[in-house]
């Protein structure tokens, strides 16, 4: 990616840090933790069970092998949090470093996935906020993401936590956020 993306001038602060527990709208107790390679197998199982209809822009990939290849990269380079319901993974959110090609500024690309049976219960928002809180403690300042133009629910959520739209020239809308790392 190029370094031309714009970020909000004002940094956003106050995101919660992992670990934390909350009750979702279906009365389930959900725990959000920062995770590393040790959690990869459980998270891979969530993605293997993922409904292909909820796939966005080619991810998650299909089939166990491709899911593993994809997660290997994400866990090798990125910051990850997962939402657990008991031992089951209900969702996963990640910040993957975006190493600038030219002299662009270092940034992280964000994505969140919530397993179908756990959607519409507020877990996505908690995952998002906790990932941003975790990112801030790890020195992440610039975050961007893309979302399909027709996904207004997701765009509303991102806007709500502080993302601004910074690119709308094709099928995906690009949004960015500046994190307060103080």
């Amino acid at each position, binding site marked *: *990616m190029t370094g031309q993306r714009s970020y909000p001038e004002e940094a956003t602060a106050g995101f919660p840090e992992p670990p934390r527990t909350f009750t979702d709208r279906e009365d389930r107790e959900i725990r959000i933790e920062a995770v590393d390679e040790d959690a990869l197998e459980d998270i891979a199982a969530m993605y293997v069970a993922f409904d292909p209809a909820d796939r*966005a*822009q*080619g*991810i998650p*990939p299909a089939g166990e092998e491709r899911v593993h290849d*994809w997660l290997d*990269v*994400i866990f090798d*380079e990125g910051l990850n949090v997962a939402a657990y319901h008991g031992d089951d993974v209900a969702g996963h959110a*990640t910040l*993957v*470093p*975006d*190493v600038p090609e030219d002299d662009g500024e270092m940034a992280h*690309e964000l*994505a969140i996935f919530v397993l179908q049976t756990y959607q519409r219960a507020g877990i996505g928002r908690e995952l998002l906020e906790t990932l941003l809180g975790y990112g801030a403690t790890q020195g992440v300042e610039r975050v961007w993401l*893309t979302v399909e133009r027709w996904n207004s629910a997701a765009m509303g959520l991102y806007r709500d936590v502080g993302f601004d739209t910074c690119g709308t*020239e*094709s*099928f*995906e809308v690009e949004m960015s956020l500046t994190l307060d790392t103080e």
Partner: protein
Amino acid sequence: MGGCERDEPGETTLGWPGMGASMRVLLGLAGSQESMRALERTVERAVDAGDDLTIAVMQKEDMKRSSDEIVELAREVTDEYGIDAEVRVLEGEPGPTLVDVAEREGFDELAIGGGTESPMGKIRLGPVTEFVLLNATMSVRLVR
């Protein structure tokens, strides 16, 4: 592949009626990494399928390579594969110009790069791809 027909005993024909006829393919290039990949794969495929290939080099403001360089690269690749493809430089906005030329000149298929990947592995389609997909009246090949 569906619709397999066996013409003669012992001879298997894969495909559909008329498949043997070569197609006229217009490949649009804009010098990006995805374009270069599309070039190699489309030329390779044109050789296998016996397609009649025309390569259109587009002009974009943020191009990393000049159109002369891209023409040069296109010639190198077509020479390497031993096919005779016309290479031309098109002025104007890439998406609209490609669709216009393809339709006006009756091409059977328009081939373009199929997007880039974000650090996360998300597929990203640019505005040229979007314009082509929504406006082309012929088949479009997105090369990945």
